[in-house]
């Protein structure tokens, strides 16, 4: 492909489905998504010509500032909130930590109890574990019901007089199960407690209207919605409740210091704008595609267990356990066939322990070990399903007939972390 010359600086959009169909299938959109060609096109001028510092007062700075503020408006439109409630950060993890630490910090003198679920992303539970170990907060962890759903009543019962926050993710990264956040928010607000939701996985996949959900805080990451990695954001209904985690210059209304990553913020805005346009239609397509994949896989491997099948799930997510198989091996086998899927969240893909999410749902560890997550998105189409199902079913049968030996296990561990 010809790269741009200075006069034609916009990249030529590529077509992933076409590109990948020939040899590779990418079904790991919950780990990360490709950058949409429209997004790339929007960001490229800011990577080349418009390179001013958005805090500079001269024209170059103003041009960059315009890009940043436009992106904030675009994200605000997708979420149904005023743009001044949105702050850009470097990633979803930073956003989540900022919210949790703000709450802990604000209530440090009077005691701070936080209610959360046991199926959160590591950037939530490790942050809370750290705050817990330093004595700043007390945490109650709520297990999900059988189908992966957190019961709002259990949240309500866990709330104490010193509870300052309820934090429950909107959609789980491994199972795609969507949580009853509005109900959880109602229960918490009735007791005067603020609510945060990690909406990193849900963003762009299902409509999120933050006003309707009645949230106090929410967090986002661009690379799950066809934006680039390394840019995130958070919503704070009341921005004055935020205690900055990274201090320095007055960027982001003094809530997040550091020279604004203008091209990547612009890209996040463009990704949000596109999600706003296509999310409803796309959800329908992906839901169908996922359901087809699901029923075809069960046809091939009838003992397979679909995680969260009875719950509302993100349209493209299928987490399926093949009993008698190790998911981590299956993922590697599939990778050799040019199929990219995951055995859990990417951050913990290198661990051969069964997923904490599946175990919390009450799935037996030996079944949970056979979990594979297919997460569908813009890089997929119907004509990939046939080959994918055949390959997967064959590999599952193969692994059952020839279970991996001890030596291979050692190999895997050294290959990882």
């Amino acid at each position, binding site marked *: 492909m010809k790269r741009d010359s200075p006069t034609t600086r916009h990249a030529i959009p590529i077509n992933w489905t076409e590109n990948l169909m020939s040899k590779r299938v990418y079904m790991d959109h919950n780990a*990360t998504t490709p950058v949409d060609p429209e997004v790339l096109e929007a960001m490229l001028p800011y990577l080349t010509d418009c390179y001013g510092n958005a805090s500079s007062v001269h024209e170059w700075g103003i041009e960059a500032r315009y890009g940043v503020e436009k992106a904030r408006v675009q994200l605000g439109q997708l979420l149904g909130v005023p743009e001044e409630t949105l702050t850009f950060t470097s990633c979803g993890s930073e956003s989540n930590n900022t919210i949790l630490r703000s709450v802990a910090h604000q209530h440090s003198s009077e005691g701070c109890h936080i209610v959360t679920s046991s199926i959160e992303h590591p950037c939530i539970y490790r942050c809370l574990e750290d705050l817990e170990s330093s004595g700043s907060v007390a945490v109650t962890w709520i297990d999900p019901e059988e189908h992966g759903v957190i019961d709002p009543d259990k949240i309500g019962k866990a709330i104490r007089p010193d509870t300052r926050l309820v934090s429950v993710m909107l959609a789980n990264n491994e199972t795609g199960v969507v949580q009853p956040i509005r109900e959880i928010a109602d229960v918490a607000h009735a007791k005067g407690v603020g609510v945060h939701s990690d909406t990193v996985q849900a963003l762009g996949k299902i409509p999120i209207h933050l006003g309707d959900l009645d949230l106090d805080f929410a967090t986002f990451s661009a690379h799950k919605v066809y934006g680039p990695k390394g840019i995130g954001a958070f919503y704070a209904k009341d921005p004055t409740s935020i205690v900055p985690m990274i201090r320095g210059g007055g960027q982001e209304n003094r809530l997040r210091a550091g020279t604004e990553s203008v091209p990547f913020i612009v890209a996040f805005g463009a990704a949000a704008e596109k999600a706003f346009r296509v999310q409803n239609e796309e959800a329908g397509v992906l839901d169908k595609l996922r359901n087809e994949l699901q029923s075809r896989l069960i046809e091939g491997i009838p003992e397979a267990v679909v995680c969260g099948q009875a719950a509302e799930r993100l349209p493209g997510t299928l987490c399926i356990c093949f009993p008698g198989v190790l998911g981590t091996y299956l993922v590697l086998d599939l990778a050799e066939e040019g199929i990219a899927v995951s055995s859990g969240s990417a951050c913990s893909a290198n661990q051969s322990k069964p997923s904490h999410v599946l175990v919390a749902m009450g799935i037996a560890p030996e079944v949970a070990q056979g979990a594979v997550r297919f997460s569908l998105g813009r890089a997929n189409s119907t004509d990939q399903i046939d080959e994918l199902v055949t390959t997967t079913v064959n590999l599952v049968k193969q692994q059952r007939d020839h279970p991996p030996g001890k030596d291979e296990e050692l190999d895997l561990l050294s290959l990882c972390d």
Partner: protein
Amino acid sequence: MNTLYFDNNATTCVAPEVKEAILPFLEERYGNPSSPHHFGGSIEGDLSTARQKVAALIGASPKEIFFTSGGTESDNLAIRGVLSMDTTRKHIVTTAVEHSAVLVQCRELEKMGIDVTYLPVDSEGTLNLSDLEKSIRPDTALVSIMWANNETGVLFPIDEVSRICQDRGILLHVDGVQAVGKAPIDLTQTRIDLLAISGHKIHAPKGVGALYVRSGIKIKPLFWGGNQERGRRPGTEPVPMIVGFGKAAELALESIREDSGRMRLQRDTLERGILERIPDTIVNGGKDPRLPNTLSVCFDRVEGEALLMLMDQNGIVASSGSACLSHKLEPSHVLLAMGVGEETAQGAVRFGLSRYTSDEEIQQLLETMPALVDKVRSLTRRVGRS
């Protein structure tokens, strides 16, 4: 009208080679580096190549490099990361002329019961090392000192600072954001415990930086999540930005001698020309050692902001000092610390050159500036100063 961009201490353009290096990672190679499949698998290698290149630029080993979102985060991580490892040490030493990434944080730490000593500088912007010696206490956790000042370009004697810190057994953090790529940094020669650097000052994109942590030094992460950057800095790695940073570091290392030689000649020409053509002008921190690309001047009887606006209208981009603070009309804390009077400091203009600055641009700048300064001076005379 072509623009003369002289604000390279605020931020630089992305080098064409860097952009070329980034694009494949925004297009086909989008996998998550933590994923075991080959959409991600091969990307691990690209990350480690980038890490090697950044390490090579400063004479470090790749395992001592931790990627962050920028210089500000690196400074925050270094200072808070050290302080929270040993909470019995409640004192840090820094200087009065640091970037806000260090200063604002220090002021916040003071509210939390940390003692901070802000070392003064003299009229040339230099540090008195005996002040540093005297400031160190038994409970000092860290000395945090910038290598090069972003406003004046003045270089602090980091070798001597390092020796003092080693003698006294105190950890040393250096804000190397402005120095890296412009002044030679070789950590095999200069022992530093932590060094903050940023991509967008060396022709990589904004939003990526690194913290060098000398092997054996332990710091606590600023925040928690996955095991990325060996747990010191979680969050899905911004692969395109990191690869771009690596490429920029490689380019900087290749051309640092040549670039700094050329920029020094250009800067000196600019400085001489301005002093010859524009009366009542002083250079801030004009004695060596200074970054080769930086010139900070104060034009007497000039409101800096007014001049910068007029320059902007005439296609000349420069700044009064730090971009992060430039919305405030207050005079620069750096110049005030150097004893420059408030009125004079208001007339400060900083020119920052880059690898891409041409001799013609220097000449054009020299030809345009005198009339612009004259104009602002005559306006100020008529309106009077408030």
